[in-house]
């Protein structure tokens, strides 16, 4: 793995983010305010948590398309466990997260035990988990949670949205793991050459199993936060979130073929997308214009850093 080129992409992206922030704050004086920025943090937490786990998964050369469905399943189960089964809410949330984690574990088991390519396996469970959410919910939503529950999704701690603390903690822990531990090294090794990793005595299967489980866990936690933020459960929650998360990860410089990528890159990519969504909206650009621009930024950013890298190494 080439540290220099990695740094280059992230530096480039960070510069781009700074430029975007400056330009956007000239477009609207309400953009670069503490309250707005914190609020954006609230809105990007679910995608952020998923994207962090997704960074690991993609760095091993895998992918997890089922995260949106796991999020939906967890949301539904939180409601169902609490209202229909009558568990205390904290227990219900934990049980639901456990099921979501199990769903991730099932992905990992299918991928490692049966050698199914991750894209195919999670494409199948994308349908399966969403289907379970729909079946279990019977199209009913669960509402009327106690007020304390909303602290997670709508409240603040020390003036900062609660879930932003969670995201920040997750990001820091994850980046340390990926950059400085042997688990992180194993992730990169698997992503670069799985066969050689296995021949080197690394526990490839266990690592992958753990990562998909972690991805399920992250999606599950995001699901509970989501429920708390919007006060209700629906079986269609989180539809399409996998593409948003993958966009952030890829924009952040993680190679879709595995072997490279950093959490810092993912977080910068995530912030860039969120800043564009918010700032452009404040500047009067409609949602469809924003979507187009994000698409263009994604292509151009990767193009630019490709060019950078090539001119650098040759």
């Amino acid at each position: 793995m080439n540290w220099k080129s990695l740094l280059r992409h992230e530096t480039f992206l960070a510069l781009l983010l700074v430029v975007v922030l400056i330009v956007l704050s000239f477009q609207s004086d309400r953009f670069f305010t503490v309250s707005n920025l914190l609020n954006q943090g609230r809105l990007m937490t679910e995608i952020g948590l998923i994207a962090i786990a997704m960074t690991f998964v993609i760095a091993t050369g895998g992918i997890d398309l089922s995260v949106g469905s796991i999020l939906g399943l967890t949301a539904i189960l939180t409601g169902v466990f609490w209202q229909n089964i009558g568990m205390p809410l904290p227990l219900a949330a934990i049980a639901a997260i456990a099921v979501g984690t199990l769903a991730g574990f099932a992905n990992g088991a299918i991928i490692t035990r049966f050698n199914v390519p991750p894209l195919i396996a999670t494409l199948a469970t994308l349908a399966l988990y969403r289907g379970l959410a729909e079946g279990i919910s019977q199209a009913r939503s669960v509402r009327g949670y106690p007020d304390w529950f909303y602290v997670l999704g709508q409240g603040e701690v020390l003036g900062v949205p609660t879930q932003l603390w969670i995201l920040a903690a997750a990001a820091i822990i994850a980046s340390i793991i990926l950059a400085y531990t042997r688990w992180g090294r194993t992730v990169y090794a698997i992503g670069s050459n799985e066969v050689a990793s296995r021949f080197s005595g690394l526990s490839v299967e266990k690592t992958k199993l753990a990562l998909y489980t972690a991805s399920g866990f992250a999606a599950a936690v995001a699901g509970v936060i989501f429920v708390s933020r919007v006060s209700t459960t629906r079986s269609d929650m989180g539809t399409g979130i996998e593409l948003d998360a993958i966009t952030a990860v890829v924009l952040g410089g993680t190679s879709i073929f595995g072997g490279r990528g950093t959490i810092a890159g993912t977080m910068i990519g995530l912030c860039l997308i969120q800043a564009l969504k918010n700032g452009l909206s404040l500047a009067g650009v409609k949602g469809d214009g924003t979507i187009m621009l994000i698409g263009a930024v994604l292509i151009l950013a990767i193009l630019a850093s490709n060019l950078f890298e090539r001119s650098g190494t040759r």
Partner: protein
Amino acid sequence: MSAVVDLPPTRPASGAQRPGFFRRLFADYGQELVVLAAVVALFIVVTMVNPRFISANNLTTIFSGNAYIAVAAIGMAMVIITGHIDVSVGALIGVLATISGTLAVAGYPIWIAWLAPVLVGMAVNACIGGLVAYARIPSIVVTLGALSIMRGGLISVTGGTWITNLPPSFLIAQKSVLGLPVPLVVMVVLTVLAALWMRYSAFGRSLYAIGGNAEAALATGIPVERRTVAVFVIHGAFAGLATILFATQLQVIQSTVPPNLELTVITAAVIGGVSILGGSGTVIGSTLATILFATIGSALIFVNVSAYWLRAVIGLLILATVLADMLRRRGRI
């Protein structure tokens, strides 16, 4: 060209090296056979529950109602075989349908309205292919971006208006030839042509080579970049053809595309046996897989599966197909 060397072999050629016909069929078309078996099994079971399932009408619904997905999946299969992927095809079909319908309503000759989506599809995908091949951006990144651009652009431009008053002669998907619905005929003809082309043309084989080992393909003298652009362009043409079926099925064209159409198309290709890593698979598989999905969708209604659990059952069936394939592979090696 004859062989250069003619050393006498030190021992006589051992005969009968080729395994039997069925073994080879199973080795070459294993996943396709699994999917086909699943379709046949579904037909048998559901027909026993409700014989109307194999009525001519229902067969038409199953085979031609989803033909446009099958046609799009042919191009997708080629792209995936070459080692790439396209997540923007759904948005592209939306854009192309709007263009086609607008032209038809504006009074242009019908053939222009039919040709336009094919040409525009090729042009758009030429750009995508160019970015993938020459700028070396991974295809998933390019198409993820293209997806956003086209989806946003479509709404920006159309503002969401539907296209109505389509001239009846434009609606080719509603017509039939020799008593068979046009979408069915188009799907079968395109699948067969594409399958032959992938198997018997040097171009088709080069796609397998590139997908299997791009570096080796380069060393073999295959112009990898140009072929990559070409396969995206062909995929664009198939997207255009799919669009024609899609846009002429009904008397109105919706400016939004079915949600997750790209995932449906990709799923069809990979369930049909196209290796997501590139280098193997056939377009027959992708068409069979589309038929499988359509059959499942129809079957679940026929056997009165609670609509709430429908998606779960579909997911389970997809998973079962995938696992069956893996077990088959294990058995073989």
